[in-house]
């Protein structure tokens, strides 16, 4: 039976050989192991030993031609045999012969001694990488407030960096070298001051702020207040009136009473309005709960109680956190207008200046004097678009100018 004579790898790296010379001719009888060709490889001229015995029936690759490893170079068999089958087979290219194959991928490692991994249960601590812990420690960041994105909710470097970005732009800069500062000394830091710094930095650097300012005539409001207070020993404060009006405006515009939470909009069910109170050791923002359903008198009473508690430090955490809207009034300091930083989780804060008698042109083109109040609304653009904020402010103006 006729058999193909193939080019063989004569060195470990040989891919192709140049047939320098055939040492036998067609018709010669050859024995297995006989040297029948001289082949130039990438390294040297090598002797090609026949792997088979028989008669060389045909030389397919002549001297001077190149043959790849595995390619047909001749045919061996018995004289007179039909060669067509061998030749035909050889025209179909030989399967590529790979010296190396790429490593197959284990679908699922089936280790004979599987390791039992511990259940991770964290009661009093959050998992954090050592690097994350160090970064947080250096930055004065409380890890409990950081959201972990790693396996098992592990806080990793990236999470701390995000939290730092949120907490303070300043903190992204290298820690300040105190010796380079003008002479002075560090002061004890109150918890209120620290939280205020942290939360408002976070707000400023995560909530994209924009500001809307509007002047409001409050002569009618002042008149209404005076009228209501006529018969009262405990006079209703202007702040109570403003807070009530803001609550009514928020009832009309619930789109303001929302927040941005975990990349989603979150609608608050009740209107909880905080108002800023400046204390000696820092700012505090007590909250009037469910202001939308309370009367002015109730609101006024709430404000009195909360301010009292704030001053004598009996106020509790739930009483000054989690507001849905905030009012800050610096009118008593003769500030005409200012912009405030949103107090999370609310999405807007109303900054109120001093009511100032101002000449204005009325609808009959007469110059008259009116008590004008400058209102500035800071909005989180993720929640409140410009027109929405403006509409709210317009509604607020209406309610203030024409109180019921």
């Amino acid at each position, binding site marked *: 039976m006729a058999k193909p004579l193939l080019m063989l790898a004569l060195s470990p790296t040989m891919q192709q050989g140049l047939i320098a010379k055939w040492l036998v001719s067609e018709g010669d009888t050859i024995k297995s192991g006989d040297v029948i060709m001289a082949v130039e490889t990438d390294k040297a001229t090598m002797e090609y030993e026949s792997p088979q015995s028989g008669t060389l029936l045909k030389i397919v690759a002549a001297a001077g031609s190149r043959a790849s490893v*595995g390619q047909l170079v001749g045919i061996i068999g018995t004289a007179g045999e039909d060669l067509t089958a061998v030749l035909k087979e050889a025209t179909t290219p030989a399967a590529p012969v790979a010296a190396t194959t790429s490593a197959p991928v284990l679908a699922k490692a089936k280790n004979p001694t599987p390791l039992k991994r511990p259940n991770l249960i964290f009661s009093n601590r959050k998992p954090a990488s050592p690097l994350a812990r160090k970064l947080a420690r250096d930055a004065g960041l409380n890890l409990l407030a950081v959201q972990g994105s790693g396996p098992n909710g592990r806080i990793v470097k990236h999470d701390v960096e995000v939290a730092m970005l949120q907490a303070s732009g300043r903190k992204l800069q290298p820690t300040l070298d105190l010796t380079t500062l003008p002479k002075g000394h560090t002061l004890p830091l109150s918890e209120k001051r620290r939280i205020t710094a942290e939360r408002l930095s976070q707000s400023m650097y995560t909530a994209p702020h924009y500001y809307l300012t509007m002047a409001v005539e409050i002569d009618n409001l002042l008149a209404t207040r005076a009228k209501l207070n006529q018969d009262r020993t405990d006079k209703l404060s202007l702040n109570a009136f403003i807070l009530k009006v803001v609550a009514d405006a928020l009832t009309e515009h619930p789109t303001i009473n929302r927040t941005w939470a975990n990349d989603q909009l979150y609608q608050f069910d009740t209107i909880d309005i905080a108002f800023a109170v400046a204390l000696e050791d820092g700012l505090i923002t007590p909250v009037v709960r469910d202001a939308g359903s309370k009367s002015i008198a109730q609101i006024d009473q709430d404000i009195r109680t909360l301010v009292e508690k704030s001053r004598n430090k009996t106020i509790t955490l739930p009483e000054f956190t989690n507001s849905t809207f905030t009012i800050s009034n610096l009118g008593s300091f003769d500030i005409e207008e200012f912009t405030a930083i949103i107090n999370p989780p609310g999405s807007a804060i109303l900054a109120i200046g001093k009511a100032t008698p101002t000449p204005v042109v009325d609808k009959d083109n007469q110059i008259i004097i009116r008590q004008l109040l400058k209102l500035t609304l800071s909005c989180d653009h993720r929640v409140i678009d410009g027109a929405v904020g403006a509409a709210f402010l317009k509604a607020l103006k209406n309610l203030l100018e024409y109180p019921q």
Partner: protein
Amino acid sequence: MTQHKDFLTRLLRQMLLIRRFEEKSGELYGIRKIGGFCHLYSGQEAVAVGSIATLDLSRDHVLTAYRDHGHALAIGMDPKVVMAELFGKSTGSSKGKGGSMHLFDPNRHFWGGNGIVGAHIPVATGVAFKIHYNEEAGVVLCFFGDGAIHQGVFHESLNMARIWNLPIVYICENNQYGMGTDYKRVSAEPDFYKLAQSYRMHGEQIDGMDVEHVYDQVMAATAMARKGNPVLLEAKTYRYRGHSMSDPAKYRTKEEVDQFKTQDPILHLKSKLMNNHDLTAEDFDQLDQEAMTQVENAVKFADESAAPAVESIFEDVYTNNSSPPPGES
């Protein structure tokens, strides 16, 4: 006489199968179907075939080194599973985990195939120890090359085989070169069979190119060994190919190779059968053709066999068996 002819024809068939198998292995190595180290047995066929023909493999045992294709085939392993193992296929005797140097067939008492020169000599001695311990009738043939004979474990093993009277025949296949080193250059005593004397053991040099002679000598040696007298045989033989496939064998002359080829064990037996037993040239060609067909079938089988599953890498590291099985104590 007919019986003798049948017997010799059987040996001829086996030698032809090995020769054709090795030629094909070399060729397939050349086109990179077979990789790694591949040590061919061409030229040495008479040693494995003549020796193993003396055995009763229901009780006798065989161990050899890395040039093991010939022994595997002589023991009766299916050329298909041997070729599939060379191809690294799942149908190979070791499921593609052993390769050329690690052919095993424990059912036929063939305990490998070992890739470390001389490392199997104590292991073979241990199999003989088991026969002795259990007071069985078997014998062990331990094959190794001239390169292994200077390893410490060879001498340590012969010493213990003698002091414990183990049923083992050590067969040194002296093919003249330990890799590229002429055995005479590195041997204080180049007549290896004489080393047996150091261990008060029978030693003999035999013609490893004459299969019938090998058979007779090994038969005599096993008879001694079965009685607790271990034997060292030195079979003078020759390999036609390099040490392994990457060895161009530049350390010996073409004339030397040609000279040994004139003593070719297959041609030797062929002429003996033709001269004394009416074997015709056609008969021989027929036998040769059968061997080639067997090899072709083996290649086809190996080629078409599936690669082992990747997950199988974790299998066969440990056995879960214990004695008695867990829970029984």
